[in-house]
């Protein structure tokens, strides 16, 4: 049994690899999608901000459909709110510069893949003395989540397939505690079908031989130390803090908050908002799905009350979410 991340999940389905694997090999999708794990409280704050006349929300595309307690940003937009889909943090800053009369809030979510870009634009905004650009900090860290998953002790995972793009930033050595303390092999792979197959092969070999090492099947891009420049930039702007993961709960040191010298760009501070509690919708098993404890069809809402057209939980919302992938490609 292996643990994979959501972009792997979508790629596995799109490429049809899952239909080719032998029965004894089960791939579970882990907490790898930044949209999946964004708390309802976070969406609620984003929606509240979007409701203000002077505010424009800049966001990655798949966030607009994530439901909060009172609807999504897509619905807010229909009500007249200004919601702009951007492809990068850079585009959000550019939007703020182009529209000085708007208060621009960038929904800064994602793992180590998107965090360096957010850090860079916060530094840039400070240098340019922009007073109409803010971020709603929601970045999360991969390793604390994996450790929390293993410390829970309930998941019978034999090994981890680790995401190439995150690893470019954090490096292979970041996974060493997972392999050494918890005895779980980790293989870093890219997302192309052949890379994934190579990753599966390396993991199966480790499990069969009883080894637990960090192996790098993506060495074109991933080094042992990762990208030190990106790491320094993140550290300059953010510090680790407890974060709420949707349907899992709070995990210590798994999120990132803005340091004091950058607090002027914190949307929560600027607009004086407190995030509310995270409420899991009744019946939703997203928490279990994200932790690999349940597969989507085990959820009573799956395919009935919860579909890509009308999603309840985050795993159905994102096109790379575990439930959406199951629904789309395996239904």
């Amino acid at each position, binding site marked *: 049994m292996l643990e994979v991340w959501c*972009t792997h999940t*979508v790629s596995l*389905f*799109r*490429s*049809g*690899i*899952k*239909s*080719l694997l032998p029965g004894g090999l089960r791939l579970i999708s882990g907490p790898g*999608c*930044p*949209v999946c794990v964004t708390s309802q409280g976070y969406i609620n704050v984003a929606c509240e901000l979007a409701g203000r006349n002077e505010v424009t929300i*800049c966001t*990655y*595309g*798949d*966030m*607009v*459909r994530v439901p909060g307690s009172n609807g999504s940003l897509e619905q807010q937009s229909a009500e007249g709110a*200004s919601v*702009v*889909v*951007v*492809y990068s943090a850079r*585009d*959000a800053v550019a*939007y703020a510069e182009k529209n000085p009369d708007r208060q621009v809030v960038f929904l800064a*979510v*994602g*793992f180590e*893949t*998107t965090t360096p870009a957010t850090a860079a634009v916060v530094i840039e905004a400070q240098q340019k003395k922009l007073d109409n650009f803010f971020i709603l900090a929601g970045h999360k860290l991969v390793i604390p989540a994996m450790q929390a998953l293993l410390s829970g002790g309930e998941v019978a995972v034999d090994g981890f397939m680790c995401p190439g*793009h995150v690893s470019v930033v954090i490096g292979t050595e970041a996974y060493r505690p997972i392999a050494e303390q918890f005895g779980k092999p980790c293989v870093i792979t890219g997302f192309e*079908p*052949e890379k994934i*197959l190579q990753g599966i092969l390396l993991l199966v070999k480790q499990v069969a031989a009883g080894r637990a090492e960090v192996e790098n099947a993506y060495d074109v891009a991933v080094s042992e130390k990762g990208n030190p420049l990106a790491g320094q930039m993140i550290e300059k702007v953010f510090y680790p803090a407890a974060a709420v993961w949707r349907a899992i709960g709070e995990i210590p040191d798994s999120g990132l908050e803005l340091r004091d010298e950058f607090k002027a760009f914190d949307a929560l501070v600027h607009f004086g908002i407190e995030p509310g509690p995270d409420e899991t919708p009744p019946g939703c098993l997203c928490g279990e799905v994200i932790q690999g404890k349940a597969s989507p069809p085990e959820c009573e809402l799956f395919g009935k009350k919860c579909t*890509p*057209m009308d999603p309840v939980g985050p795993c159905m919302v*994102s*096109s*790379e979410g575990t439930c959406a992938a199951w629904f*789309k*490609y*395996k*239904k």
Partner: protein
Amino acid sequence: MKHNKIVMAHGGGGELTRQLLAERIIPRLGNELLNPLMDSAVFDIEPGRLCMTTDAFVVDPLEFPGGDIGRLAVCGTVNDLAVMAADPKVLSLAMVLEEGLEMELLDRVIGSIAEAARQGGVVIGTGDTKVVEGRGSGGGMTITTAGIGRLKDGVNLDPSRIVAGDVIIVTGNIAEHGLAVMSARDGLAFETKLISDVAPLNGLVNRICQSGADIKFMRDPTRSGVAGVMVDLVNLVDLVEDVGLSIELEEDAVPVSAIARHTAELLGLDVMTVANEGKIVVVVNQADADKVVAACRADELGRNGAVIGRFTDAQPGLVELITVAGGRRLVQRPYGEDLPRIC
């Protein structure tokens, strides 16, 4: 007074409306149907069965690599007639302009309408222009066109004639329109050499129909892409036939340029669900497949035409893709327009 932007009075039916018509629209779109400026266009049409369609066009941004809303509005309606095996003759054109629209942009759009109509061999027979208050920062526009054409003799498009073994052909590289528009969208702008494939397809349809093949179905895979047409087809066949059929597509047979495939990958999109505005999906019996592919390839707009799959009687009601890796997966219609995803 010279106006650089559209104001409410341009749609008020008074002097400014007359000026707009006389100075900007008639000189470029005028023809003997439109010029009398009567309330309706009057024209003769050969005896036969007529075909009529209408379509509303909204696109953000109004101009994108390879086209603009004007070209889209003409080609969209010409193509909806063409894929029904009709010869498009006359189009109507209704433009709703937002106040604040740049006059130069309007001029470019009207120029595109004229150019696309010339390419498609149609005339704008009648039209209307209104102005509304701008939404947000204003300056936008929407266009509605309707079109009328005469059905070709000897073509019998009817999904109830589709049987297992029939072949699915797409007339060229897919996903280019949707990706090109996205590349120009505010907030998403990225550098790419991709351009929209938006083009009038009646010429290509003529070649296909004249190839002697027994064509059973044609549709242009616009919004929701080739995947959307495939799912629609399976549902259509299910409705009109006693026994449902499935579709089996081969991923490595689907024509897609390397740049489109990589752009889609970068944005996390599936090329099968991205919009096209210059392609046709054709269903034909297996024996005639080569004729249709040859007819496509003889036309500049169909030079990458290829067989991409076939109907089967296995597992009725499914669209399956045999992937490059040799696996199988289902093809489904997207929720809405697919949005670029994170990571």
